């Protein structure tokens, strides 16, 4: 296809992405390299209802506005924001490394740093939920394939329910069902024969609940994609394998799975990226005491009661993209190899 017609076809899509994603991304990156000007402080008298008047130190608005109008981006800080205590915390990590007597001490010290606490859960979640949800989705797809044809419609449709409910409220209701007086919470207490059991009281239990929720809500996507893929598996190849005496498991392993490979790559790509950005369940489960994620940190920096911390959110966002890049490069390399092999 010649360049001209290629770009004519691509133009609407490219323009939309450039304007609303690429441009903001560049500005986010630039912003992450700057911090606010040192603010000029003055002493003023503040009077509030009921509290009375007090002398308070505050920002000299006029003087600070002048500084800001001279250099609107703020003060160039290079990678300063990236390495400060609330992000990569290079200094604290260095200190910890030299002072820690044992690996355990070092790890617990790291978990005390906001960024690494978030990173640990993010990676844990991403690497557990992705395969679990994909395996569950694949299992459901195989099983649904066996269901009598008449029942398939309703079965597919109810299987998709976890993906369809608005996450905001879906997670909230599950959270209530799971609390120590809720139906699922009580069921677990009976199951484990421990009336004091509360899934929200400790970090390990909170992590498990979030993983279970993640698997539950992500499995339908894998299911529907794999189910579609199964319909396309060549019947001839299956029959040939059958005649060669392959067992049921061998047929799944050597015929079905390889033919689903491109799909597995596709789902893996999408799920890794989405799971790395986990944050809705943390909010709905009020779980931030025990589990935070990078996306949650970004949300928290932007959704403040007072001034939003744009610089901090920008830095965490850039770090998030960097991590996702590392995660998906191997998969992309594979896609690139297939493209190069001239398959198309």
């Amino acid at each position, binding site marked *: *296809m010649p360049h001209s017609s290629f770009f004519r*076809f*691509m133009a609407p899509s490219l323009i939309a992405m450039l304007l609303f994603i690429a441009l903001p991304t560049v500005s986010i990156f630039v912003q992450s390299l700057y911090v606010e000007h040192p603010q000029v402080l003055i002493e003023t008298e503040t009077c509030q209802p009921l509290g009375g008047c007090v002398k308070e130190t505050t920002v000299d608005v006029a003087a600070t506005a002048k500084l800001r109008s001279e250099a609107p981006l703020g003060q160039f800080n290079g990678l300063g924001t990236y390495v400060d205590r609330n992000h990569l915390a290079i200094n604290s990590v260095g200190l910890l490394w030299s002072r820690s007597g044992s690996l355990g001490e070092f790890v617990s010290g790291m978990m005390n740093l906001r960024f690494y606490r978030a990173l640990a859960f993010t990676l844990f979640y991403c690497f557990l939920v992705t395969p679990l949800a994909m395996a569950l989705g694949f299992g459901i797809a195989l099983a649904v394939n066996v269901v009598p*044809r008449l029942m398939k419609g309703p079965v597919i449709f109810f299987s998709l329910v976890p993906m369809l*409910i*608005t996450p905001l409220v879906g997670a909230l209701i599950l959270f209530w069902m799971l609390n120590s007086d809720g139906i699922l919470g009580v069921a677990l207490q009976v199951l484990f024969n421990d009336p004091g059991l509360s899934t929200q009281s400790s970090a390990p239990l909170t992590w498990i609940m979030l993983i279970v929720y993640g698997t539950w809500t992500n499995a339908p996507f894998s299911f529907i994609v794999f189910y579609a893929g199964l319909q396309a598996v060549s019947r001839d190849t299956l029959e040939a394998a059958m005649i060669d005496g392959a067992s049921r498991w061998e047929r799944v392993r050597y015929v079905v799975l390889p033919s689903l490979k491109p799909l597995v790559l596709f789902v893996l790509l999408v799920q890794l990226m989405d799971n790395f950005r986990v944050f809705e369940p943390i909010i709905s489960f009020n779980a931030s005491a025990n589990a935070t994620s990078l996306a949650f940190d970004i949300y928290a920096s932007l959704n403040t009661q007072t001034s939003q911390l744009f610089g901090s959110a920008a830095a965490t966002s850039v770090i998030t993209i960097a991590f996702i890049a590392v995660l998906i490069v191997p998969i*992309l390399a594979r896609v690139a190899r297939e493209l190069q092999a001239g398959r198309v």
Partner: protein
Amino acid sequence: MSMPLPAVLRRPAWLTTLAMGFVILWLIIAAFPFAWTVWGSFKVQTDFFSRDSWWNAITGPMTTRTTGGPFTTDGYYGAWVTTEFWRAALNTLIVTVCVTSISLSFGTLGGYALARSTHRYRFWILVAALFFRAMPEVTLVSGYLFPFFALNIWGHLPTAIIVLVALNQPFTLWMMYSFFQGIPRDLDESALVDGCNRFQAFRLAIMPVMWPGVITTGLFSFLLAYNDFTVTGLVLSKDNQTMVPKIASYLGTIQDEGAIMFAVAAVVSITIPIFLLVMFFQRYLVSGLTAGAVKG
């Protein structure tokens, strides 16, 4: 799919039973929270969110005491009539229809070009699209606010629509690209040989066979626009609010209890159209995915 299986491929009974058991177990796990929500939406908050005993959510003692019967439609009445949820529903309808159709138009053209181009840059466009998808949405949206207010375009439905279309493009492009890869090249190339230009070839040879892929991708675009909170919550004014931010507003604030049962009733309500849609398009959904991503 509908061909009868040859005898040799028939499954043993134990396997069918096992599979059926697994499917039933999964269906219970998948649908139970929703069933619970539907049931609870006819109770008062004190019962559904009881800390006394979950049994209250089933029997509804407080519902009986305050409304005279074990079931009440107060939540639905409050949401749809008192707080005019229908207006949010109307806005959602406009937003989702526009987002879905525009994303599909853009994505179909782009995906087709990507699938048929042989130039090196198309790989890089695909990779760039993936990285665009990696960007946390909330960061992007917070950055939009200042320019939107300055240009006086904040708060209006078209603004939210175009932002959602843009954020949706990477996924749409990838899906449509994989799908077009599955359509044989001969189809449009023969049209080109017959003297059509690229656009005519696309219209005459490709368009008739692309619908399964379009419908699949469209369903995902639809879900994204329908369930979006990040964009619609920050970019729309109250008059133009869609359903999900409206539901969020029922949930209350730190100092205010809100009207949680309105939210529960609203969630049940907004799930119904998705159900109908999935039921209706389910057959296409599966065939679209088969034709598309499988061969991608």
